């Protein structure tokens, strides 16, 4: 019933421990949000799950869909159905967006014609102009365009679990609405979504089942998404230290 179980995970980057003894469980087909101050290890958590070799797992286990994936290579994890979107996706010169999206669709088993059709659907849903398909991946794309292109890859790959790292940062309200629409669509299609965010804005368009708050090497789970408003008002320190809690929040 859990798509992802993180069990006492400790990860280091360049010999420095970033997250320590973190545990967390995400139910299948759920929608979770992860919030936390800068440098609390949110991206490190996601990179550990996908298996980026820069992020060294020192102890603990990662269980995906009942299987221990702690030591398998990244592309195997991706094949099993994990997708990660990046805060700042890099530019890949010479690899055309259209070619790349079609390649992802075809690797999922779609025929040339099906891939062509699905590609058209995806870009029109995400409001990506057709002329972008001939451009190099992420070259000269604005913040919002890059994030929509990340979602386009997600929609092309149809993963079981989508880890979205600040997909709502640095984008305008139009892109925010498009991306929120896409999140709702993939949730309906049965993908589990795990979203890192700094802002409560996106939560006006998508409604998570739970909010995790991460910081000071601990992780707290809230079922009431009002916590996002509380964080915005009194800050992470206050919430993580337990100085204020949702029960005694007088806001609203």
């Amino acid at each position, binding site marked *: 019933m859990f798509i992802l179980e993180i069990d006492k995970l400790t990860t280091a980057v360049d010999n420095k421990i970033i997250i320590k003894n973190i545990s967390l469980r995400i139910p299948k087909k759920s929608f979770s949000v992860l919030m936390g101050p800068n440098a609390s290890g949110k991206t490190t958590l996601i990179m550990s799950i996908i298996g980026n*070799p*820069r992020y060294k797992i020192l102890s603990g286990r990662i269980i995906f869909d009942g299987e221990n994936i702690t030591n398998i290579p*990244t*592309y195997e994890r991706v*094949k099993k159905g994990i997708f*990660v979107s990046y805060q700042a996706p*890099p530019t*890949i010169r*010479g*690899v055309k967006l259209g070619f790349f999206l079609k390649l992802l669709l075809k690797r999922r088993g779609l025929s040339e014609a099906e891939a062509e059709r699905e590609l058209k659907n995806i870009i029109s849903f995400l409001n990506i102009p057709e002329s972008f398909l001939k451009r190099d991946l992420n070259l000269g794309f604005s913040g919002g365009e890059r994030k929509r292109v990340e979602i386009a890859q997600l929609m092309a790959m149809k993963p079981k679990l989508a880890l979205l790292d600040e997909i709502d940062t640095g984008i305008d309200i139009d892109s925010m609405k498009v991306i929120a629409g896409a999140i709702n669509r993939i949730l309906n299609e049965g993908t589990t979504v795990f979203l890192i965010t700094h802002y409560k804005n996106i939560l006006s368009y998508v409604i998570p089942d739970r909010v995790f708050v991460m910081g000071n090497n601990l992780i707290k789970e809230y079922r009431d998404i009002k916590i996002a408003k509380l964080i915005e008002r009194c800050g992470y320190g206050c919430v993580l230290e337990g100085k204020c809690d949702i029960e005694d929040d007088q806001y609203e």
Partner: protein
Amino acid sequence: MNSFPQWFIEKRRFAEKFIEKAPEPKYGLKLDWNKFRLSAEKYYRTMDIDDLPPEVKGSLQNLVFPFSKNIAANIVHVNETLVYEKIIREMVPRGVEIINIEDAIRKYDWLKNYWFRAFPLTLNKLSAIHGAYSKGGAFIHVGENIKVKKPISSCFVVASSRYAQLSHSIVIAEPGSEIHILTGCTAPLTVQGSLHAGLTEVYVKRNARVVSTMIEYWHRKVHSRPLKAVIVEDGGEYVENLIMLKPGLSIQAYPTVILKGKNSSTILRSIVIGTDSSDIDIGEAAYLVGENSKARLITRGLALDSSYIKQRTKVWSKASKSSGYVECSGLILSDKAKLETYPTLQTLVKDTELYHESSIGKVAEDQLFYLISRGFSEEEATALMIRGFLDPDMLDLPEPLLSQVKSIIDLIVRKAKM
């Protein structure tokens, strides 16, 4: 020889005398010119490309396009002889002449005005040796306003060992004409210690357009020194695609375009893949002479195995309202490989715009991981990045040539040691 015109015989004598005092070439691995024979075994003409000796046919198959149905004419030189010629008349209109260079020298006295005009005979020892002893080559003449839509294929095969193939080809595009010439240079695997030094002079007249795509595919025991110079007149355009798929023991090439006419332009693109322990010195130069002339130079070098690549680019200007752009990038994929870029911009006038972008480096880890996290293995992701870096799409090649070039690139990259 005695049937050649007087001007030709005199030019040869002059060149022969000049060899002694000529300087060694400035660029490329030093070669001992005495180690090469200046003539080689004769090959005989066939009517069908399939009747060529198996080793010759096999080497042409590396280039793929000589067997394509999408070409308007097909000529093959082996050593110093034209062995195969097929011209599809529906695609090559009257007024386009494709013949052996020696026949052209005997036929047209005016050829003396083109012989070593674009390329200076006195440049160095190799050009002087060429002037004295060249044998074979193609003469391609496109008449006024004639546009040949499909490419013409012209291939050179070095089929003998310790031999220097010194072919001299001349292309003349008369005013308003258009042509795309595909040149392929290769050798059978059995050939050792040979040199290919094909010299080509191209004359692009008023408002004419010439596209030249040159593919080199050698193996480890051959040196290559393709020599090329181009003169472009008013409103003319010259486009060159230099594709070095397999560089052989060593290669040096520096095609030079003189934009003599007003509003003339050139695009010079090169893709170089260094494999094994090849010594590669490759570049291109554009001289902006005519007012409002434009040059665009784009080079991509990929260093694999223990290859050593030097990329040179040069734009020189004395033309007002002219512009030159150089983009030079290199990618190093092996710890044993070396790659250097030498971009040069020079101007004698103020109202010219010259600029360049240059970058060399290894595969960026963040980009590689980005692709891996989309479900590609490390090899697949690297191949995607290399294909993207070399960007064969930029060459604007007609199909099926583009797909063929892409698949050859994929094959080479897959075989190479990172």
